[in-house]
């Protein structure tokens, strides 16, 4: 029970019949960080999240939220976080304001406090104009905003977001990211699941990669990328006759294998500072090059490297 951790997950296991959906997963989430659960579809992200948020009983293992066991102290643990589910977890048949009012009341706010909080949140999430409209007329983005607003009624220190931007257009997604960053700036701890690598890269301080129910890797985006390998240098040799010479020259400089595809060469750099000597040597040998790119490994590479996926 360390105070430093917002969540402690220990040996969490969930079986559906014979299928093991989550297999002995353990990790800790520090206070104030954004923790990303990344994995392909069906990897066990949502199942893990559902166990963390008391919606699903684990077969084995335990989850502690700010030191409170989610099974033994379920109600106390539930009072400490807000949850925004994968599917709109708001009431479709009633208005935005009514949703906020009802969920405020269910969260234990008094009638007057509920009214006030609903008004505050409608303003905060720019929903004032549509406050009394039926949710059927809401866009996907508005619905997600309302969904998030409902999760924030009690200003929880911990917020779970299950695929917060799935199905949103790029603009709304950027808005959602900004909202999430605001929450972080206010000191909230956030756990989010996503299948989008750029989202994890943009938002998460640490990422747990889950595949086939198992925790494959955990670390900062930079650490994960480093694992896959260093920076890649790509360029094209302008004249076909000079390609062989260029390969020889670069190989000699770096003492590494150069990959050749037609006139295109690519080689892995250990350090970016190795770039200058190569370019100087090429210039001295009068080999003209173009389309030069230096590529950091992306989380895509990490993802492909670490996960097998369903198919």
């Amino acid at each position, binding site marked *: 029970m360390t105070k430093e951790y917002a969540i402690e997950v220990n040996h969490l296991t969930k079986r559906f019949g014979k299928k093991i959906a989550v297999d002995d997963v353990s990790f800790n989430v520090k206070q104030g960080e954004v923790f990303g659960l990344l994995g392909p579809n069906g990897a066990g992200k949502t199942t893990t999240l559902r166990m963390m948020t*008391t*919606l699903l009983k684990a077969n084995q293992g335990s989850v502690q939220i700010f030191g409170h066991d989610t099974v033994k102290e379920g109600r106390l643990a*539930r009072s400490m*976080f807000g949850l925004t589910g994968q*599917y709109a977890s708001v009431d*479709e048949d*009633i208005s935005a304001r*009514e949703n906020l009012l009802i969920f405020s009341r*269910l*969260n234990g706010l008094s009638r007057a406090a509920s009214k006030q909080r609903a008004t505050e949140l409608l303003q905060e999430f720019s929903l004032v104009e549509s406050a009394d409209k039926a949710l059927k007329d809401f866009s996907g983005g508005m619905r997600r905003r309302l969904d998030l607003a409902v999760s924030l009624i009690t200003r929880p220190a911990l917020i779970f977001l299950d695929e917060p931007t799935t199905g949103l257009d790029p603009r709304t997604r950027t808005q959602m990211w900004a909202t999430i960053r605001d929450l972080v700036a206010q000191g909230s701890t956030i756990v989010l699941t996503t299948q989008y690598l750029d989202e994890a890269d943009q938002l998460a301080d640490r990422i747990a990669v889950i595949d086939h129910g198992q925790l494959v890797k955990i670390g900062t985006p930079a650490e994960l990328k480093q694992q896959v390998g260093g920076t890649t240098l790509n360029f094209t040799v302008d004249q076909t006759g000079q390609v062989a010479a260029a390969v020889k020259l670069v190989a000699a400089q770096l003492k590494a294998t150069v990959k050749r595809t037609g006139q295109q060469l690519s080689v892995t750099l250990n350090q970016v500072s190795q770039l200058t000597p190569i370019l100087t040597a090429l210039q001295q040998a009068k080999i003209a090059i173009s389309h030069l790119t230096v590529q950091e490994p992306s989380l895509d590479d990490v993802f492909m490297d670490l996960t097998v996926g369903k198919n």
Partner: protein
Amino acid sequence: MDVQTHRGNLITNTATMAYRNLLKTIHNPDRFMDVIIQPVMFMLMFGYLFGGAIAGGVQAYLPTIVPGILIQTMLSAASGSGSQIREDLDSGVFDRFKSLPMAHIAPLAGQLFADILRLLIAAVASLATGYAMGWRPTAGFGWVIVSGLLAIFTGWALSWIFALLGLMAKNATMVQSFSMITMMVLSFMSNAFIPIKTLPKFMQVIANLNPVTYVITAIRQILATGSWTHEAVLVLIFGIGIVIVFAPLTVWAYNHNN
């Protein structure tokens, strides 16, 4: 946490959930259409079609058919609870209810209390159509209300059974078709529309075993005699018995529905 909260208790949580269900209905009045249209339609059709054949005239048939359709409507209104609970459970919003620090049973209880309004509207629609067709019970208005309340209570007790069904079933469609069949069999194989003695022997046995027959008889007696009869007491006890047995079962099924 700088938002002032107190631990919600069962009663306030249930009241909030009942309020939510009422709001849902206010925004979608079509949710009431089935329990209004069905009794009106049945009353008109059966009354004018069979009145002459069964009782020698529409007016003479009304004291038979009004309580019959009243109870038939209660049955179908109660069966609606089951499919609504299933639909609710299948929607994302239930995950949020479960993740809140509230009384666990409140969503279920809220639904069942809000359904009383549905039953009330159904009862009024049945009785008002009868009145419009010329039905004038001798017992007077007070006893009409008493019989209406007994019908609503019976319907509410039955809604616990349908709620249990809703929790156990795989999807709302399944609940709906099962409820439809139950409703048809129970209401037609009873004394709701015809005198039992006109039935073949084996059907008489079934109709006499059918609990719906007892409820309808009790209501007819209240309306005919203007008194709280022995049968009415039995129906009330029967209703209470259903709640005592099925409420805990439903709650248990709800708690184990994951």
